[in-house]
């Protein structure tokens, strides 16, 4: 019997919040450790999880640098901090006298696959907002601009660009399914979208399967937090533009941002941290939201919206502006009170 190949995985953290690791621990059926075991992933180092005493870290790094140990999967969580003045001094590796950005670069030259875990690592993320005061970079992008820490031509030893598991945080299955697909040798460049995210979760919109879809159809909108209506017209929701399967896959077994009554802020997109307006307010021009669904002609959208608004049943209009359902479908049916 041929033993399945063991894959060495090393996980570094830099200019982020550790939230993607926390999200990873939410994985179910199986949990993260079992998922690694089932896919024959050998965890060389993860600062939060691995057993190794700290003096092993330098040894592991040396072994990879000198090709004694093969690095199959490099996961980086958090943006590369290049400030001040390109020195990387805002994040020095603890116990080693080098900037973390240098270590990331060195290891990325050795790895078979390089994974940017979360939107910070992919595109810069929240730390980039407000004029990027610490000069953070994504591994291969800064917001929409290709380049980043490793440069636009970078490919890992498997001839793949950086795999951007964007999201703030990334869903545990987005991370694990990518790693597991790599272990199955089923993950190549065709699996990536135009900004190098795995297609399996970005070929959907966060809007798909949103439980508020009936309100959306009629543009029956919530005006304040807690109201049941659609969050797109007033409260900043970008789910109709956001590439992610949040409402299909669901978070922590049950949830999504709109399901809990607050806006999708398009956290899987490059540059989401600087929307150009307050996160929970929809910018409008002459009363019409600026950020309409990306691939729909504006005139059509406006025409359809005015038509559907005019046709909104009383049930939907009333419920949209209240915290609890005031008119249920059975009441509406019996009263026959759909608006003529």
């Amino acid at each position, binding site marked *: 019997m041929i033993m399945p190949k063991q894959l060495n995985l090393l996980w570094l*953290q*830099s200019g*982020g*919040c*550790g*939230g*993607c690791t*926390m999200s990873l*621990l*939410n*994985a*179910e059926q199986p*949990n993260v*450790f079992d998922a690694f075991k089932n896919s024959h992933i050998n965890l060389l*180092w993860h*600062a*939060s*999880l*691995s*057993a190794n*005493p*700290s003096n092993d*870290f330098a040894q592991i790094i040396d072994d990879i640098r000198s090709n004694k140990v093969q690095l199959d999967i490099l996961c980086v969580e958090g943006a590369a*901090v290049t400030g*001040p003045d390109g020195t990387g001094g*805002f*994040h*020095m*590796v*603890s*116990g080693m006298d080098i900037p*973390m950005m240098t270590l990331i670069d060195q290891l990325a030259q050795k790895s078979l696959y390089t994974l940017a875990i979360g939107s910070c690592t992919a595109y810069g993320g*929240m*730390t980039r*907002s*407000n004029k990027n*005061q610490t000069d953070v970079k994504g591994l291969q992008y800064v917001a929409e601009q290709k380049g980043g820490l490793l440069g636009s031509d970078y490919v890992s030893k498997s001839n793949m660009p950086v795999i951007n598991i964007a999201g*703030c*945080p990334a869903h545990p299955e987005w991370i694990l399914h990518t790693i597991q697909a790599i272990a199955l040798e089923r993950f190549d460049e065709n699996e990536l979208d135009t900004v190098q995210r795995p297609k399996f979760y970005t070929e959907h919109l966060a809007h798909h399967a949103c439980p508020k879809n009936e309100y959306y159809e009629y543009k029956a909108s919530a005006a*304040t*937090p*807690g109201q049941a209506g659609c969050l797109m017209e007033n409260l900043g929701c970008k789910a109709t533009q956001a590439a992610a399967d949040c409402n299909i896959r*669901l*978070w*922590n*077994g*049950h*949830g*999504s*941002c709109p399901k*809990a*009554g*607050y*806006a999708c802020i398009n956290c899987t997109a490059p540059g989401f941290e600087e929307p150009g307006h*307050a*996160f*929970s*307010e929809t910018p409008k021009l002459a009363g019409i939201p600026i950020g309409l669904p990306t691939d729909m002609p504006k005139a059509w959208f406006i025409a359809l919206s005015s038509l559907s608004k005019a046709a909104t049943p009383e049930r939907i209009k009333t419920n949209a502006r209240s*915290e*609890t359902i005031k008119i249920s479908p059975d009441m509406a049916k019996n009263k026959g009170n759909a608006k003529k």
Partner: protein
Amino acid sequence: MTRKISLGPLNRVEGDLDIQLSLDENEHFIKEAQVKSTLYRGFENLLTGKAVMDALAITPRVCGICSISQSVAAAKAIADFAKTPMAENGQKVTNILLASEMVADILTHFYLFFMPDFTQPAYSKKAWSDEVNSSFTAVSGKQHGLMLKARAEFLHIMGILAGKWPHSMVFQPGGVSKTVSLSEQIKLLGIMANFKSYLEQVVFGDKLENIANLQNQTELENWQHRHSFSHSDFSMFLGISNDLSLSEFGASSGQLLAFPAFEQDNNNYYRGGVFLDNQIQALATSNIVEHHDFAKLYGDKFSPVSGLTQPDINKKDAYTWCKAPRYDNKVMETGSLARQFINGESLALSLVNSTGTNIHNRMILRLVELAKLTLQIENWIKDIEPKNTFCHQIKMPKEGQGIGLSEAARGSLGHWLTVENGKISNYQLVAPTSWNFSPRDNQGIPGALEQSLAKLPYQSEQDKQMLQHIIRSFDPCMLCTVH
């Protein structure tokens, strides 16, 4: 010549931590320790010029571990600024979510960060070694899979009430944006029932009520005598702690700090306060000052009301990005132990009065808090009134200030907000591990962990291992520390 030793990168803590030890000439003991936070992101400066409500999107991302604590402090700072009360249902949902984050954190800390240290080679000759290795070895220990499953299923509470965890924007100054139906309320109670049975069978080996009702050190010792070492993970920890005398290590200044947390009606479940000069006193936030002398930041000292965060990477003698917060110029310890002691809870009073602040007491009180908060979450779920409002509307003034105080798993968290022309003009946050892992202040007095490590022996492998227990007994979160 004193030799300097770096312990970094310290793993199984949240975020980047390095500790530099200076040994005496004979290299027998630690003369002094410097705690170094090595990552600077400048989160406070991300908020300047932004819309006030943007704090609810930005501040949770300070830290993926304490994300809800950050959201709650931000929502409270805005509520204080806008002089808005929180809807009662909003308070309850907020409390459930904040307590759930703490409970999940206590489990993660105990199983993934703290217990694996007892599987290190320094203890291979101990009678308990084989059993502890099989249970708690990092990644492969048999208790980790059980914990991760129970934790993930418990965090379905987040899915239902917060949409996701971490980084939820459900928290509002007037309450929460999620309403809860009767059916959801019942579902939440079902999740709690499953989680309680995991805690009772695996973690404690006893009813949660019995753990929560342990009144003093004697009752705790009696509990231990009635249960074998292998009875539960709690009893294993008690056995190890006795064997290694963990109550004799890790003392800090003994001065304690807690902020009020878990609002309910006009009260707080944790009342907050300080323990100074051997008495519990009321909290006055005006006594909080952050010293910059050994932080790589401009300036000398600031009240967080008008604080400044501006990097000065080449500053002389500075060795960390962490400011040194002080209360009335005193070094304070904050965390689970502090908030229960200041709340007057009898087991905390008994343990701390008899042996002070140390590894054993921090760990025991954290586990007891796990039992207490789990029971309390159930009460808050039952108290939700699905027909009442969950969120009051707020009217935002153009100018003013607000303070938002709360507790995170590892201690007191405060946000200080200043608004001018309808935009945030200054935002400062002081996090729990900023207190515990602070550098020296302007009097040269070391921070809480630095004090705990000084003068310790540093010869045998067990001596060296003890440092690791002390460091992790604070449950540090380095991402919050510097922010």
